[in-house]
């Protein structure tokens, strides 16, 4: 079972496409089927879910799902899961997912593994892997309960190429949902440094304590803009007040796995690494050659960012013709 919300035009959201891909591979190994719960706006991408790997899609659309109200989403997900009783429920590890998954697991009396980086089938059961102790170690877990919920880290699984003609059943469920008790009365937009959402960005340029202040983030912003990416930060930079918490990458912030992650002045505490180690190419720029960030980096520059970045930026501009 894949629980999904949001959509990307007629297609499911990126997170849901990934979970469908992961679920498809597990279904093939375990001999099961892939059922998807399309909640809220995702209901309109039901056919798209079939194309991305679902055998059956159960949709729930209801006014209570118009806001990202976890209570309503958990109730809708509970209804969907109750319908087919799939043993494994995959939930996207976004902000709503972090709220919905514990509630859903509570309602299903299911074991819950948060921050899952992989789910495997060992021949008789699903084995879930997650980082523990700030990313220093990994744990493999199985559930003792009939049902289990895995909150899957963004980009931990890979989407399949869509097959537009794929066969699959779509069924609309009618679920009685109570109106939300928490009412949004105002939204204050965050000043986005960079145009792309951090979690969706293909390129993330992050700064840490080594930057020494808020000013250098402007340069990171410019690099991110040139590369079509977003700006991230370590906990230290956020705690120092140099950048808003929305940008924090790490165990207590956002988990990202872009194609390119550039860490500037970040030592590489496991707290931070837990949130970015899945990136395809990691570049570290740091004065200290012993900094732990170089253990996870693919490309390293030992040097003072004040010298390295301006030249890097100038060369990037040349390459990009900007």
């Amino acid at each position, binding site marked *: 079972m894949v629980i999904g919300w949001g959509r990307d035009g007629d297609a499911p959201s990126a997170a849901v496409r990934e979970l469908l891909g992961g679920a498809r591979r597990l279904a093939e190994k375990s001999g099961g089927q892939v059922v998807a719960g399309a909640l809220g706006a995702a209901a309109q991408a039901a056919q798209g879910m079939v194309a991305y790997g679902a055998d059956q899609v159960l949709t729930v659309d209801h006014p209570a799902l118009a806001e990202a109200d976890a209570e309503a989403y958990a109730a809708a997900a509970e209804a969907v899961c109750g319908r087919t009783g799939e043993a494994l429920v995959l939930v996207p590890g976004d902000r709503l997912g972090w709220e919905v998954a514990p509630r859903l697991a509570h309602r299903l009396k299911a074991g*819950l593994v948060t921050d899952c980086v992989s789910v495997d089938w060992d021949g008789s059961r699903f084995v879930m892997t997650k980082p523990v102790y700030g990313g220093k170690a990994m744990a493999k877990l199985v559930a003792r309960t009939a049902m289990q919920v895995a909150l899957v880290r963004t980009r931990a699984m890979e989407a399949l190429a869509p097959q537009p003609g794929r066969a699959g059943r779509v069924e609309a469920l009618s679920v009685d949902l109570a109106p939300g008790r928490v009412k949004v009365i105002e939204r204050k937009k965050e000043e986005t440094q960079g145009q792309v959402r951090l979690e969706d960005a293909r390129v993330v340029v992050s700064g840490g304590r080594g930057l020494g202040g808020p000013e250098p983030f402007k340069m990171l912003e410019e690099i991110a803009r040139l590369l079509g990416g977003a700006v991230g930060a370590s906990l230290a930079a956020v705690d120092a007040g140099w950048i808003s918490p929305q940008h924090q990458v790490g165990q207590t912030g956002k988990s990202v796995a872009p194609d390119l992650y550039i860490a500037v002045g970040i030592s590489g505490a496991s707290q931070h690494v837990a949130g970015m180690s899945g990136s395809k190419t990691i570049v570290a*720029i740091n004065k200290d050659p012993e900094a732990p960030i170089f253990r996870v980096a693919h490309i390293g520059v030992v040097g003072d*960012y004040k010298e390295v970045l301006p030249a890097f930026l100038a060369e990037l501009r040349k390459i990009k013709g900007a």
Partner: protein
Amino acid sequence: MIGPFDLNALEVAIQLKERHGGQVTALTLGSEKAKEALRRALAMGADAAVLIDEAQVAAKEPSVTARVLAAAIRKLGGVDLVLCGRQSGEWDFGQVGALLAEELGMPFVPFVPRLDVVGNGLRLERETDGGIAVVEAPRPCVASITNATDNQPRLPKVKDIMMANRKPITVWGPADLGLGAADVGEAANRLEVLDLFIPEVKSECEFIDGEDGAEKGANLARKLLERKVI
């Protein structure tokens, strides 16, 4: 154990008490050592402190933590607002707030940097992916507190620390809360750890050469182009 964000939550609670009155109870599931944290809570301005004896709770999963804390909150009675830090614990941070809301049937607002009482309810700011949302929720309600400049935990004065040392700390076990082995024993764990391992991190770091930082910077851009990542 009281973690950093729990102290932010406590600070928010004490500020609320200073503005509107009321009573703040610090509640934790922990070992004898957690008494130190509860003493700090009392010194910061909490009126009462309750420790649930962790030694009698064999199951360590968040669902069990939430079950135990919810039972204690029900026993305390008349609670208007339950605040917790935005994360706790090494293994499953971020769950207990939502689970408490499920257990207690209360609404839940996560990632709250600040809140205030408005009429019979609460007005809270919550961090969302798109920025800050201002929300209203009825009481009683559960909120998880995130750090902000105006909720940094205060440093208690020596006088307050001495006072706190004389205040009693209530200690309850599961039996006091009407919970039995099925609720808190090892069998209440829903997960089983098959394996714990240190992932092998082979450093495959390729260092960029250059006479100085500037040359390395330019070479870095060329390397990224060569590797087709930009």
